[in-house]
């Protein structure tokens, strides 16, 4: 119908170069789906990177990369903000500068926490204990932000939720592989409730990768990294 084809014209040609298991790539898909933007997904084998990826992200050679009418954008949070600016319906960020600043602050914090949790996952002994401690302190700050709200964005999912989204799914896999408990419901009740609310949203759920594949991937990564650590002096 006319409305549909006008919409497609507006969207332009949208491609996502990504890896199914990557939480950073899933963020981009969530953003596009929330905006109702149609895109072509181009899966990468990260052990054998394509010319397309290397050409479009020569600096980092990483996924995700968004291609909009052939023009590349890299870095997941930069991509999500771009998506919000390029397609105006269903805004992900508030128009108000202070709220935007808060969302951006917490999005950066979320990315730091990914590294902390992964570090806790792969570490052993004293390093693991310290990383877990750091992760728990961070989760306590995040708990405060979600207390009294359904989503970080308020009544609707927004940029802040998409940035934190990995906590609703990838975190639990890292807990399992790393043999640790971080997001315990009675310690972080509001955040725990948010993970349930967030992961149940159909658009969010349909982008989640198979859990068994994620467990397999993290197990392999952790085994490899621990073997490297065992070899170094």
């Amino acid at each position, binding site marked *: 119908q006319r409305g549909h084809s006008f919409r497609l014209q507006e969207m332009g040609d949208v491609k996502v170069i990504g890896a199914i298991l990557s939480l950073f790539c899933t963020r981009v898909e969530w953003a596009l789906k929330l905006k109702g933007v149609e895109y072509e997904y181009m899966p990468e084998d990260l052990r054998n990177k394509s010319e397309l990826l290397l050409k479009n992200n020569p*600096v980092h050679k990483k996924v995700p990369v968004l291609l*909009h009418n052939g*023009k590349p*954008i*890299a*870095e997941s949070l*930069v*991509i999500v*903000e*771009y998506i919000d*600016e*390029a397609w105006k319906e269903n805004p992900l960020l508030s128009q108000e*500068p*202070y709220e*935007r*600043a*808060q969302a*951006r*602050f917490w999005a*950066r*914090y979320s990315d730091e926490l990914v590294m902390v949790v992964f570090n806790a996952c792969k570490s052993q002994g004293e390093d693991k204990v310290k990383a877990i401690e750091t992760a728990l302190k961070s989760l306590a*700050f995040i708990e405060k932000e979600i207390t009294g709200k359904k989503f970080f964005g308020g009544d609707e999912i927004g940029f802040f939720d998409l940035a934190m989204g990995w906590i609703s799914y990838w975190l639990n896999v890292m807990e399992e592989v790393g043999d640790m408990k971080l997001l315990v419901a009675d310690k972080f009740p509001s955040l725990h409730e948010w993970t349930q609310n967030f992961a149940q949203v159909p658009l969010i759920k349909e982008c989640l990768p198979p859990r068994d594949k994620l467990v397999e991937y993290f197990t392999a990564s952790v085994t490899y990294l621990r073997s490297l650590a065992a070899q170094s002096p």
Partner: protein
Amino acid sequence: MAEEVKLFKTWSSPYGLRAVWALKLKGIEYESIDEDHDNKSPQLLQYNPVHKKIPVLIHNGKPVAESLVIVEYIDETWKQNPILPQDPYECATACFWAKFGDEKVLPSIWRVFIQEGKAQEELLGQAMENLKFLEEQLEGKVFFGGEKIGLVDIALGWIANLTCMLEEISGLKLITQEKFPLLFGWMQNFVCTVFVCLNPKPTERPRQLGGLQALDY
């Protein structure tokens, strides 16, 4: 109601300077509060309980932390002399390069200067590669932002300030006119525009590299 703008920073931090430059580019009056890195004030800890770091901007009592988040906030709050481009693609590109500066360029340069001998040689390769990417971005431009200073210039401004100081202390020349002519030229332009026209306090120079705390924030 009069605007109340305060900035918690330190005398040396390049992250704090970003917020200073952004405020000065916009012509915003603000109160500067210099923190002691080893003895942080209760106000700072109250305004930034998560990181307990500077810079923190307080606008009418509300705190904003993280230097690039602050710069974007300043740009979105005060519309004169825009720092970020209007076009979404150009804006995303600027944010990408600012992030690259922080996550790759700054650590790679810092690591070169704190190592010696063979380790330094190995790290040099990585730093040079990162600088080459920046050199390419300056093709046909005066500043990374084009004709005027933009987000990327502010984000990378520490190169103009810190690298010269580190080169002088260590004797290792990283950014020369032969190797990086555009970047070298940019540093001169940036220093002229920002340090002369905007005139923050000149920095003291510590005698030993070990005593340098300029990157703590």
